[in-house]
């Protein structure tokens, strides 16, 4: 039930995001061309947080995935040991 709720929540987020993105329109182009060097600092997007974010997400996703594998493996090993005790000798 918990998993089903997670799936439904993910589906809802994707649907909402795609609706919002498709409805988004780029701002109207301005008449004059302004070289990027002449833009104020407040209009320049810093690259460092984006680069750090990209590498952070990559490493976060990998480490989280490794952790989930380790957790699942530990659970199965526990269950295997438990069931192996219940199987009579020669039953395997």
């Amino acid at each position, binding site marked *: 039930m918990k998993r089903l709720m997670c799936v439904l929540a993910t589906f809802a987020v994707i649907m909402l995001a795609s609706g919002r993105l*498709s409805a988004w329109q780029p701002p109207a182009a301005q008449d004059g061309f302004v070289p990027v060097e002449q833009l104020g600092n407040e209009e320049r997007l810093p690259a460092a947080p984006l680069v750090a974010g990209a590498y952070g997400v990559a490493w976060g996703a990998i480490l989280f995935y490794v952790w989930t594998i380790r957790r699942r493996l530990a659970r199965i090993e526990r269950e295997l040991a438990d069931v192996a005790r219940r199987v009579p000798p020669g039953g395997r």
Partner: protein
Amino acid sequence: MTRLFTVVLIVCIGMFGYAPFLIVNAPYESTMGLVQKIFYFHVAAALTMFLSAFVAGIASAVFLLGRRPSMDRVAVAAAEITVVLGFIVLVSGPLWARKAWGVWWQWDARLTSTLVMWLVFQSYLLLRTYGGPGSDRLSSAVGIFGAALVPFVYWSVNMWRTVHPTTNVVPTLDPSMRGPFLFCVLAFFCLYALLLMTRTALETRRAELDALYLSLED
């Protein structure tokens, strides 16, 4: 833990430990500047995702034709890793795009086809979890279709008009950037081998557990 696994693990740790130095020392791209550094992980993850999708598709096909359960276990592992790598690609790409294109997302051929491929592998995993008896064969068919999407995703930038750079970028890369890039690709391939071995081992242990439960019922 096998000797091969240990060797690949050591190589992988060494490569990922050295990769940041190569990325930092690689020259800045003239128009994009610092944000282009995302390229080294974004493209490496994308290429590994393609490799993983192929592994999932081929293993699924072998399972469907030859009924070899070991291939099904490899397919499940590869499909799950494809989803993880796809997540990295689909998040790091928009972070780069925000600076380079001024928008987080564009519904162009490359981005949309990558998202569709990622959703196909998500559906593989959902089918596997909730499909019930016989879902292994059904999901194998989905895995084959997922792998069949890879060429479309790869060549989409050449076939349709798109804001995403074409496949010409990597072959024409400056040698000072090509070295770090190929190093990162190799590091991701090593990581992929490790993840695939570990995840397949998990599926094997799960199959052993199922067999034990069956013997308990008899």
